[in-house]
């Protein structure tokens, strides 16, 4: 006998693929794959979190780095493979729940099925004998079941069918719908949301426009010309660190700011606090206080004493003791432009000849250490970071000893540069606050979906779907025979008696089902007792 393999046409194959994709086995596999695929995102630095660390990684791993980059290991969560897994998972999930929704809707509309003939074969079973006829017994059973919020049906004169716990399946479906809605919320936030980060020295401010931010990340569908036009001034910033010697020395203790905002040009300014864990909402966006550092006020004068540069210049902290790096770019210096680059130490090690490190993050012994360069600051007019100097077309200025000049300045100090280049003074130290302005129109959707997901999860895990069936048969008139056959302790006056049999099944393992059947029996017996 030969076995012919069934031939599948394109439709057949498509149907086969769809069935494979929407099977529980595949969904489970994709879920586990998603968990595994997320792991590299925690091991390798991610561009979306810290592009600087990615750049450092590429420099220190010249062989494997570019390969990892090609395989999107630095952008795991927007990589083709991660996206493919979660998109397939969503499709698989929808393919699974949409047919189930149809089934569930029709189950919600239909009556519980007919009672099987042999109830004693069900998972839970009990029987009792009550006074009265079949109709009285079944009516009582119906009342008891309805009181326990069962949906009840009478398919024939001798039985009652009941079902409850539809919420289990509703919850299950809503849970999965909620997960999809979370993804929708995330997508909306990604497409229509934006974030702008800016470093603001105390006493300064900014107007929210596309170009005023240090970095601006708009979503693909954001109209960047229509950002909310608010203004913000950083009035004060309080930062304190633990002063006690020991393991906790220098750990941050307090970090709060006070700001003045103007919602729209012409509005009255509002003074308000801006704290960690307490963003300030302005015109549909939120302002967060995320970072802080020092901005030494540096003045550069030419030989005649004319001020060429005078600014609170933010330096970026490099470690927990706020050793910070920064630059001063004096574009107006003649005949050549001047560039200063170096370190700010809030608490320089006071010992003579010490390394240029900071030993405490608070400004206890501030020192500015700067190298001086002359030449062209922006070769080729290419954009460059505010915090680094491109010295490819600059040369270090030599000191009296012929070595490259290094300035070491404390607040109030002024140094004259050699060769009539002018002077540099370190006037005072201000702090800067790192502010982040975020707009995410999808977050309400995500939040609502997350709450729905939790509630649905509780419903689907805690509610049990149960079917109960009751059959009643009237006993023959002889009480002795009836009592014996029903094994009941019936001892009332002669009358009509009925055996009530109750059987129950549950969709899942249900240790409490027996107890439920027993408690319904008890209640029926109780009701049957003459008042």
């Amino acid at each position, binding site marked *: 006998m030969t076995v012919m393999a069934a031939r599948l046409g394109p439709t057949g194959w498509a149907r086969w693929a769809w069935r494979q994709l929407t099977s529980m086995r595949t969904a489970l596999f994709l879920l586990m794959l998603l968990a595994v695929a997320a792991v590299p995102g925690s091991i390798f630095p991610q561009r979306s979190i810290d592009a600087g660390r990615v750049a450092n990684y590429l420099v220190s791993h010249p062989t494997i780095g570019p390969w990892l980059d090609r395989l999107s290991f630095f952008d795991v969560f927007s990589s083709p493979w991660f996206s493919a897994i979660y998109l397939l998972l969503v499709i698989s999930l929808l393919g699974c729940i949409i047919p189930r929704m149809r089934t569930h809707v029709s189950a919600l509309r239909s009556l519980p099925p007919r009672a099987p003939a042999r109830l004693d074969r069900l998972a839970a079973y009990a029987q009792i004998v009550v006074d009265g006829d079949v109709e009285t017994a079944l009516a009582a059973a119906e009342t008891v079941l309805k009181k326990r919020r069962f949906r009840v049906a009478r398919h024939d004169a001798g039985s009652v069918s009941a079902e409850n716990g539809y919420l289990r399946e509703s919850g299950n479906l809503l849970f999965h719908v909620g997960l999809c809605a979370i993804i929708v919320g995330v997508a909306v936030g990604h497409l229509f949301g934006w974030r702008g980060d800016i470093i603001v020295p105390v006493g300064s401010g900014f107007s929210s426009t596309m170009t005023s931010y240090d970095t601006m990340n708009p979503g693909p569908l954001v109209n960047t010309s229509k950002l909310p036009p608010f203004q913000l001034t950083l009035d004060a910033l309080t930062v304190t660190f633990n002063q006690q010697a020991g393991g906790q020395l220098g750990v941050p203790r307090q970090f709060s700011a006070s700001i003045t905002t103007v919602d729209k040009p012409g509005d009255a300014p509002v003074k308000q606090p801006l704290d960690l864990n307490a963003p300030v909402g302005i015109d549909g966006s939120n302002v967060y206080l995320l970072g802080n550092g020092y901005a030494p006020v540096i003045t550069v004068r030419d030989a005649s004493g004319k001020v060429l540069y005078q600014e609170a210049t933010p330096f970026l902290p490099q470690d927990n003791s706020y050793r910070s790096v920064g630059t001063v770019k004096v574009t107006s210096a003649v005949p050549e432009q001047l560039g200063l680059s170096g370190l700010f130490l809030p608490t320089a090690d006071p010992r003579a000849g010490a390394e240029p490190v900071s030993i405490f993050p608070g400004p206890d012994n501030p020192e500015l250490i700067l190298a001086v360069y002359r030449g062209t600051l922006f070769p080729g007019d290419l954009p460059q970071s505010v915090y680094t100097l491109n010295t490819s077309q600059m040369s270090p200025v030599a000191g009296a000893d012929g070595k490259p000049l290094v300035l070491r300045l404390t607040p109030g100090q002024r140094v004259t540069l050699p060769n009539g280049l002018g002077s540099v003074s370190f006037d005072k130290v201000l702090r800067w606050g790192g502010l982040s302005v975020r707009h995410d129109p999808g*977050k309400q959707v995500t939040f609502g979906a997350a709450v729905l997901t939790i509630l649905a999860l509780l419903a689907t*895990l805690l509610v049990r779907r149960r079917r109960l069936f009751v059959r009643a048969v009237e006993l023959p008139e002889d009480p002795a025979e009836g009592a014996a056959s029903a094994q009941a302790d019936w001892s009332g006056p002669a009358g009509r008696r009925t055996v009530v049999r109750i059987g129950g099944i549950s969709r899942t393992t249900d240790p409490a089902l027996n107890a439920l059947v027993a408690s319904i029996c008890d209640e029926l017996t109780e009701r049957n007792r003459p008042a």
Partner: protein
Amino acid sequence: MNPTTLASYSNLALYSAMLVFAFAMLAFTGHLAALRPVTRDELKELAREPALVGGSVSGQEGEAATTDRPASARREASDSSATAAGGLEPSLRARKLASSGIALTWLATALLTGSVVLRGVATSRPPWGNMFEFATAAACAVSIGYSVLAKRNRWEWLGLFVVGPVLLTLGLATTAFYVDDAELMPILRSYWLLIHVTVAILAVASFTLALALGVAYLLVARREGQEHKTASFLDALPSAARLERTVYATNMVGFILWTFTLVAGAIWAQKAWGSYWTWDPKEVWTFVVWCLYAGYMHARATAGWEPRKATYLALIGYAAVIVNFAVVNVFFVGQHSYAGL
């Protein structure tokens, strides 16, 4: 009393708890050793003292009739010894050791709870702001959970599986993770610390209890699959089917709490960092743990998957919980850098 004194009392209570847990562990180990079915000689011994045996084991046997478990080695063994030893009742020695173990666990749990409370008073905040405090609080939650459930479910046999990991956690906490009492970092000062981290602690505690039960279940399941070989304490444990249901229920509680932890963490992140989800390493691993346990829940609910295989998935999930705590906090760069190490 000044905070430093309170914190030193807290540490004293912690070390005392560890000492008592160590004795509890010894008692539970002895209990398991004494649980194995009695030998012929011991049977004769027991027959002479009939008053010492007897009683009821209904707590463990209530549901045996409804399970689809095959006639297990345990049942055969108990049937053969039923005449003298009165069914499955553990020996007097086993029972004595069990009650010592339970009593010592209660004492240690009380000491540990005292330690956590004192630390909270010393620092005037919820005492779970760094790794040391989190580990201690989670160990405390596990001990309380076990102490409460052990009495009701007759879980003396589980003692070793619970007290062992608790002691290990406390040992690591006091050596590798220890930091002195201190104020919270400014970013952690939020009522969300109370919501997010408390629920995380409860979730981890549930997963840990489920792990202990899961390991016991796997051992019993393997034994039930074998032909009867030598006597083992496993024969005195509840049936595999019954254990498996408990494992599932406990993991289910953990999964619900973990889902809540994840959502509460996202809400706090939105307030603190400006974005509810940034794939910070801690978030990545919280997500990984969630996926693994979600996989377990589905595998368990799907016909065709052996419950044993599903339980292995839960064990992998627990391994991810450990990574999420011990590896992510210490070795990965992220925003959840609160180890204080």
